[in-house]
């Protein structure tokens, strides 16, 4: 079987990919115009070329285009894929691989593996792979994926603990994999051998295709490439700490990457989950609260009262009201940055939290007035009874607990609904839902108007 698409087009960290980088040698010349690159771009089948700015002229440009593609695709409602068609043209492979390495190095040197830039690169690599695979025939795709997977996995029998990193970062979920005696089952024959005799009234082959088949193999392959990308960025970062001067081209690229990300936030609003419009602070809408928050708002009848109000509700309410974009912007703020006189805290946020505390049985603060200090501390105002500007910063403003944490520390709160499937933090639930709720209530009031007529 002939594979048309190079392995490196999907996995730039493969041996093929490394070879390409080695051939290029030093990174000189990554800034200069490259005719070969430009002609591949302009000859891509559905490439938009009406505007020069759509066409990358150098490796450096191409690296930025890769990031821009992802940021726009995620945030821009008017995203036009024809401007980026070249990214899916297999002919660009050689250039693409080098752009990928440039990005990893720039980000590794300047921001490290835990940065937003790193996260964006890793995610964008995953998305690129998905989209590139999507353009192949089923056969081609299967052969390519199997090939890459074989080179990434050392043996046919893989223990699930081999994927510790992927599971830890939730790139893969344990319950999505088929496990048997500690091994992850990917291979069809292996599957049939182990499970055929147990399956009744259904075709084992078909069950394999549905439950594992190409889908899980691709998932595992993509997530492994993503994880390896992250590891590579980490390596670069560690190495650059030991070495002398980082290459100025890399530093310049790193700055430009941030610019691209910033621009996409400013123009389109980052993290709005594709609904457009940025997530801005505005009056709270309890209709958009997730099930867990609704539950606490009704008051807790049993255990976990303190944690529910102080650790869980307080950060949620304060961020939802004052800084709902915290996770997408990823900038640390203090409350006074957004509520300089603390008027919103006093008039809107504290009353809500105190209301919920009162509805507990027994009411929280009557019982344990000293807990007000803890509440205050979670808002960033230190260990005092009330929030005052002069104490701000003595503690940090706690960010809302993730769903995962809620499930562990306050399992009785989490009653997931449909929206919960798409999010990892109750605050993201709120940001998503608020948009839907607004639309619904508009429709409702329009209906009301109609009735009046």
């Amino acid at each position, binding site marked *: 079987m002939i594979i048309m698409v190079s392995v490196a087009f999907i996995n730039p960290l493969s041996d093929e990919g490394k070879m390409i980088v080695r051939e290029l040698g030093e990174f000189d010349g990554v800034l200069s115009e490259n005719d070969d690159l430009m002609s591949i771009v302009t000859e891509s089948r559905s490439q938009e070329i009406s505007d020069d700015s759509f066409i990358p002229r150098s490796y450096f440009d191409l690296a930025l285009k890769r990031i821009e593609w992802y940021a726009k695709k995620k945030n821009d409602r008017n995203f036009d894929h024809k401007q980026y068609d070249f990214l899916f043209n297999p002919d660009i492979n050689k250039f693409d691989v080098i752009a990928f390495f440039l990005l990893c190095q720039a980000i590794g040197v300047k921001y490290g593996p835990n940065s937003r830039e790193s996260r964006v690169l890793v995610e964008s690599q995953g998305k690129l792979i998905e989209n590139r695979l999507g353009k192949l025939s*089923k056969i081609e795709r299967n052969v390519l994926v199997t090939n890459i997977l074989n080179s990434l996995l050392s043996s046919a029998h893989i*223990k*699930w*603990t081999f994927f*510790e990193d992927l*599971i*830890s*970062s*939730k790139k893969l*979920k*344990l*319950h*999505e*994999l*088929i*496990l*048997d*005696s*500690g*091994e992850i*089952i990917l291979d069809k024959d292996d599957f049939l051998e*182990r*499970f055929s005799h*147990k*399956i*009744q*009234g*259904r075709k084992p082959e*078909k*069950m394999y*295709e*549905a*439950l594992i*088949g190409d*889908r899980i193999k691709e998932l595992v392959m993509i997530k492994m490439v993503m994880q390896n990308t992250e590891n590579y960025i980490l390596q670069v970062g560690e190495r650059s700490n030991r070495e002398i001067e980082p290459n100025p081209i890399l530093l310049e690229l790193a700055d430009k990457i941030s610019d691209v990300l910033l621009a996409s936030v400013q123009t389109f609003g980052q993290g709005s989950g594709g609904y457009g419009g940025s997530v801005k602070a505005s009056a709270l809408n309890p209709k958009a609260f997730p099930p867990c928050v609704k539950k606490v708002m009704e008051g807790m009848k049993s255990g976990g009262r303190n944690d529910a109000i102080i650790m869980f509700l307080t950060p949620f309410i304060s961020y939802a009201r004052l800084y709902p974009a915290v996770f997408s912007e990823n900038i640390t703020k203090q409350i006074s940055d957004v509520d300089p006189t603390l008027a919103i805290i006093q008039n809107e946020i504290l009353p809500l939290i105190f209301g919920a505390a009162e509805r507990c049985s027994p009411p929280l603060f009557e019982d344990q007035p000293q807990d007000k200090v803890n509440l205050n501390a979670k808002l960033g105002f230190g260990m005092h009874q009330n929030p005052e500007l002069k104490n701000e910063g003595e503690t940090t403003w706690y960010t809302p607990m993730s769903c*995962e944490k809620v*499930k*562990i*520390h306050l*399992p*009785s709160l*989490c*009653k*997931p609904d449909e929206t919960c499937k798409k999010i990892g933090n109750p605050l993201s639930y709120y940001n998503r839902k608020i948009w839907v709720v607004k639309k619904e209530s508009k429709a409702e009031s329009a209906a009301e108007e109609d009735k009046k007529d």
Partner: protein
Amino acid sequence: MVKIEYLTPASPEERKRYYREEWNIKQVPEYIIHSIQEREFGFDHVGRGPNDRYKVFRTPDLLKRFLKVRTPFAAYCSVAFYDKPRRRDRWTKAELVFDVDAKDIPVRTCECEGVCEICLNEAREIVLGIIDTLKADLGLKNIHVVYSGRGYHIRVLDNDVMSVNSDVRSQIVKYLVGADVPENEYSLDFEKVSYEHFVIPFGYPNVFTKRVKYAILHLTENSELDEVNKKLLKDVLKHRQLIELDNWGMFKNKIGPQRYRKVIKGIASINMSLVDAKVSIDLKRILRLPSSLHSMVSMKCTEVKNIETFDPFDDAVPKFVYERK
């Protein structure tokens, strides 16, 4: 047979008798003894929680002397291994533990306030289910069970999992207890197929099926499941012998597919409380030392040799209890 009213606190005199006459260092499991220098020990001398912590014993003999002399209210030992346990410094690894407390089981058939024979036995059944999954799915082998005095600790010492972090541990917990409803729609080339969890006899769907079965068979009229009203609960109880016979399809038909979904969603959500997940994700937790006395209930925290036949009221009652008037 000892009766439940014996579950009363032990007096200081009884504690002394226990540690001086009955307790033996050989009752401390081998997996603790041979790593004794790497673990942190903690003690509660007065009954207000372990506040004498960061203790280290270089040899089993020193631990023995300490217990015989101090006869503590409670004794604990870390699941974590450290290079410098005295400062809880240089953590190297930790046992993977699951804490099944009879008092906190989300569905139990007894209505007792604390702990009784019935719920202790139900805790045991849950432990059996978890161990089965640890072995069959996760391929773990070095598994120990300890009766904690009020329930069970499952302690896993396979090297593969001792180094994993809290995030991985939390996913393991969710897998074992069946806290997520499995997908039931799958796409094949040009069609969608749907497989309910109960037609898939392997992997997570199979684990989930077992946990749901357990829960349904242990529901009572007073059980509470989210979005499951009294009427629906009644219908579930009425038809549950179908589940006992593994006639899931028929059960689902009787209940109705929409309502069936509600039931299993409700069960998935309470399943998270089958174990205390906080214990499993804590990499530095201290647990009751097997062989020590649980003074609150006058029972021994005991290594369980055979969980199939273990009976706490036979195997975990100290002698002094029999001599009480």
